[in-house]
C-alpha cells in the first residue's frame, strides 16, 4: 500500500528548505562580515577598492635589479609570482630527484645505505621547514664560513682564468647560457624536432603493433629529437654559449653568468630536502605496495633486475605514487611563502612589504590568496591529467 505523506513532509521539500536556510544564513553572515569590513576600512580611511594595484610600487626588489620602483604594483606582483615559480620549480625538481634516490635507498639490501636513508627521512620530516630554512640562511650563509661579497670566493676552471662558481655570503654566481645568434630560428627548429619526435613515436608504435617487433619508441623519439637539435645547433653556429660568472670592475656586482642570492638557495635547498623526505616515503610505500609476486613472476620470465623494475614494479608503483606526490608538490609551492623570513622576494614577501608601505591589507591579501589558488589549481589540474593517463583503466 503506497503511503502518501503530506507535501511538507516529503524529502524533496524538506531538503530544499534546509538548503535555502543554510544558504540564506551563510549569505547573511557573509554580508554582515563584509559590511563590518567596509565600515571599518572607511572609518580608518583605508580605500575599499583595488585602485592601489596601478599605483607605483615605491621600492626596489633585491632579487631583480632591473625592476624599476616606479612600475605599478601589479607588475610587482608578477615579479613575485615569477620568483615564487622559480623557487617552486627548482624545489620540485630537486625534491623529486633526491626523494626518488632516498626512497629507493631505503629499500637497499645494504643495511648501512638503508639506515642512512632512514635517518635522512626521519630527520627532515620531523623538523619544521622554517627552522631548516633559517638554518641555511643564517648558520650556513650569513654567519657561515663564506666571505662577504666583494671578497667573494672565485673558483677557477682548471688551467683557465675564468670562474665557474662565485661564492659569497649573500650572492652566488653560476654559469648560464647566453643568447648569441639566430635564437628565434633555433627555437623554431626545436619545436619542429618535437613534432618529428612525436611522428617517430607514432611510427614505432604502429610498427610494433603490426609486426610485434620491439618498438624502443623512447630511444627512437629522443634520438631523433637530439639529432635535430644538435644538427640545428651546429648549423646555426652556436645560438647559445656558456656565460661564466664574472664580477664587475669594482667587484660589487655580477655582470655575467646567473647570479642567485643566498636567500633563494636557502629556501630552495631547505624546501627540497624537507619535501624530499616526504617524497622518499611515498616512493618507498609505493614500491612496497606492488605485490612481491609481481617481481618474482618477472624474475621467472628471466627479466633482469633492471627490466623487472622498469617494466613491472615501477609502472605499478608509479600509479600509487602519483596522487600523494601531487600533494607534496602543492605543499612545496605553498611553502615557498616561507622565503619571507629570509628575505627572498617571493610574492608573499613583496605583498607584505607593499602592505607595510600603506597599501590596503585586505585587498593585497586577497590578491595574494588568488595567486596561490591559481598556482594550486594549475598544478593539480596538470598533474591530475597526468594521473589519469597512468591510472589503471578498469572495466
Amino acid at each position, binding site marked *: 500500500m503506497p503511503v502518501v505523506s503530506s507535501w511538507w513532509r516529503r524529502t524533496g521539500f524538506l531538503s530544499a528548505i534546509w538548503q535555502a536556510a*543554510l544558504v540564506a544564513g551563510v549569505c547573511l553572515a557573509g554580508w554582515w562580515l563584509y559590511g563590518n*569590513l567596509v*565600515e571599518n576600512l572607511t572609518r580608518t580611511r583605508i580605500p575599499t577598492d583595488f585602485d592601489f594595484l596601478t599605483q607605483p610600487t615605491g621600492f626596489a626588489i633585491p632579487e631583480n635589479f632591473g625592476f624599476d620602483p616606479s612600475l605599478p604594483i601589479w607588475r610587482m606582483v608578477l615579479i613575485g609570482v615569477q620568483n615564487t615559480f622559480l623557487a617552486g620549480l627548482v624545489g620540485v625538481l630537486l625534491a623529486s630527484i633526491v626523494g626518488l634516490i632516498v626512497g629507493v635507498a631505503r629499500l637497499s639490501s*645494504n643495511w648501512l645505505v638503508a639506515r642512512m636513508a632512514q635517518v635522512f627521512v626521519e*630527520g627532515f620530516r620531523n623538523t619544521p621547514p622554517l*627552522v631548516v630554512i*633559517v638554518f641555511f640562511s643564517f648558520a650556513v650563509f*650569513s654567519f657561515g664560513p663564506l666571505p662577504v661579497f666583494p671578497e667573494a670566493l672565485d673558483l677557477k676552471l682548471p688551467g683557465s682564468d675564468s670562474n665557474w662558481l662565485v661564492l659569497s655570503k649573500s650572492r652566488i654566481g653560476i654559469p648560464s647560457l647566453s643568447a648569441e645568434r639566430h635564437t628565434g630560428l633555433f627555437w623554431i627548429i626545436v619545436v619542429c624536432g618535437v613534432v618529428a619526435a612525436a611522428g617517430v613515436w607514432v611510427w614505432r608504435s604502429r610498427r610494433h603493433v603490426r609486426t610485434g617487433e620491439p618498438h624502443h619508441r623512447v630511444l627512437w623519439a629522443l634520438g631523433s629529437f637530439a639529432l635535430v637539435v644538435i644538427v640545428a645547433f651546429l648549423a646555426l653556429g652556436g645560438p647559445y654559449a656558456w656565460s661564466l660568472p664574472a664580477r664587475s670592475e669594482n667587484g660589487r656586482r655580477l655582470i655575467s653568468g646567473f647570479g642567485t642570492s643566498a636567500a633563494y638557495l636557502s629556501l630552495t635547498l631547505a624546501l627540497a630536502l624537507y619535501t624530499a623526505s616526504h617524497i622518499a616515503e611515498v616512493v618507498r610505500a609505493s614500491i612496497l605496495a606492488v605485490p612481491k609476486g609481481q617481481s618474482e613472476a618477472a624474475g621467472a620470465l628471466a627479466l633482469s633486475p633492471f627490466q623487472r623494475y622498469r617494466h613491472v614494479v615501477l609502472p605499478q608503483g608509479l600509479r600509487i605514487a602519483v596522487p600523494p606526490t601531487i600533494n607534496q608538490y602543492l605543499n612545496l609551492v605553498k611553502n615557498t611563502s616561507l622565503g619571507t623570513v629570509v628575505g627572498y622576494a617571493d610574492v608573499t614577501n613583496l605583498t607584505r612589504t607593499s602592505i607595510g608601505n600603506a597599501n590596503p591589507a585586505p585587498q593585497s591579501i586577497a590578491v595574494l590568496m588568488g595567486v*596561490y589558488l591559481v598556482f594550486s589549481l594549475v598544478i593539480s589540474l596538470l598533474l591530475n591529467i597526468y594521473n589519469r593517463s597512468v591510472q589503471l583503466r578498469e572495466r
Partner: protein
Amino acid sequence: MTATVPPPENHPTGAERGAPARPTARAWARENLFNNRHNSVLTVLIGAGLVALTIYGARFLFVTGQWEPVRTNLTLLMMGTFPRAEQWRVVVQVYLLCAAVGLVWGGLTASSRDRARDAGVPFSRARLRDGIRRWWPVFVLLVALLGMTRTWLPLAFVASALAVGVVARRVMEALGAAWRGPAWFFAGICALAGWQVVSGTGGIAWWWGSALVAAAVLRTTRNVRTDARWQPLARFALIAGAIAVVRAVYAQFDFSGVGWDDWSGFQLNLVAAAASIVLAFPVGLAAAVGRRSTLPAVRWLSVGYIELIRGVPLITLLFMGDLFLGFFLPTEDPLSKVTRAIAVMTLFTGAYLAEIVRGGLQAVPRGQVEAAQAIGLSAPRVLGMIVLPQALRAVIPALVGQFINLFKDSTLLSIIALTEILRIRESIHGQREFLIVGIAETLVFVAFAFWALAFTMSRESQRLERRLGVGER
C-alpha cells in the same frame, strides 16, 4: 649495534623462543653490508663518511659548540615572556597533566591485564627499558635540558612530575579494570584543573567543567532502565542538574589566571598547536560530513571552504589574522594577537581535518549504513552511532600526523611577531654578548626540540596504526 651481540644459546628469552637463532656479527655483516662487490664499496665509502661525520658532530656537540646562548636563556626559550611570578601555575599544570596521563595509562593497563587473565594469556607489563627505547628522543631532550641547567630545581621538578605520573598509574592498576571508565573521568578532571590553574576559573571556564561532569553523569546512568517516554526528560534533568551544581561550585571561587596572550616560548608552540587542533575538530567534522552530504548546497559550501583554505599557504591566513581579522567584527577593540592567530590556525586545521575525516568516512563499508537504515535509525543516529565511531577510530593516526604538522607550523607564528621559540631564539642574538655567538647552536637546539617531540609522536602513531590495523581491512 644491537645485532652484534649474539644471545647465549642455552637461555632463549621468552620473546625469542622459537625464533631462529641470531646470526653472528660476522655472518650478519656479510649478509647485510658486504653481500656483493657493489655493496662492499658502498659500505666502505659511507662508513668512512659516517665516521668523519660522527667525529665532527661529537666535536660540535662537546668541544667546539658554543652552547652558552642556549644555557643562559633556557628559561626564556621554554617560557618566553610568561610572567615569572606566575611560573608556579605551569609547574602545577605539569604535575596535573602527568597525573592525568598516569591515570589513563594505569586504567588501560589494568583492563588489558584483566582481559588477558580472562583469556588465559600471559600478560607482562610494559617495561621501563621498552619505554626508553620508544621514547628515547624525549629522554635525550630532557637530559640535554637538565644538563644545561645551573640549579637542581629543574631536576627535582622533572623527577617529581614523573613520580606523580608513575604513582597515578600504579594506583589505577591496583584499583583494577572496573575503574577504567572513572579513570578517564579523573584524568579529565586533572587535565581540566591543569588548564584552569593557569587560565583561571573566570569567564566561561565553568562551562568546560560542567560539560565534563554532565558527560560522566550520562555515562554512568546509561544502563539505568527508564520508561522510554521519560528518558529524554530524565537526561535533560541530569544535564541541567550537573550544570547547575558545577556552576554553583565555580561561583564559590574567584581564581583569576593568566590568559593565553601571556604564553610564549616553546609553551606557545605547544599550546597553539593543541588549542587549534581541539577547536578545529568540530569544524573539520562538520565540513567532512557536509562534503559527503546529498544536499548540493551543503556539499558545495563545504567543498568551497575546504579547497579555499587548502589552496593557500598558512602564512597568508596568518597575515589576514594579524592585519585585518578584527575588521570583520563590529567591536572597536580588536581581539588579542594570540587569539587571532589561534582562530586562523583553527580555520586552517579545520579544512585539513575535514579531508582526514572524509578518508575515514569513506573507509566505513556501505553495508554498515544500509544495515543501520534497515533497522530504522534516523540519519543523525546512523551518523553518530554507526558511521562516526568507526570512521574516527580509523583516522586517529592521521589526526596525530596533522597535530605534528600543526606543531611544526606553529613556528610560522614568529612571522607575525608572536614570541614563540624561533622568535625568542632570534631575540637571544640581540643580547650584546651573543650577537654573533652560537648562531648554529641555538638553531640546532630549537630544531632538536621540535624533532624529538615530532619524531616520538609520529612513531607512536605508526604503532597505533599497526595496532588498529588501519588499511588492512
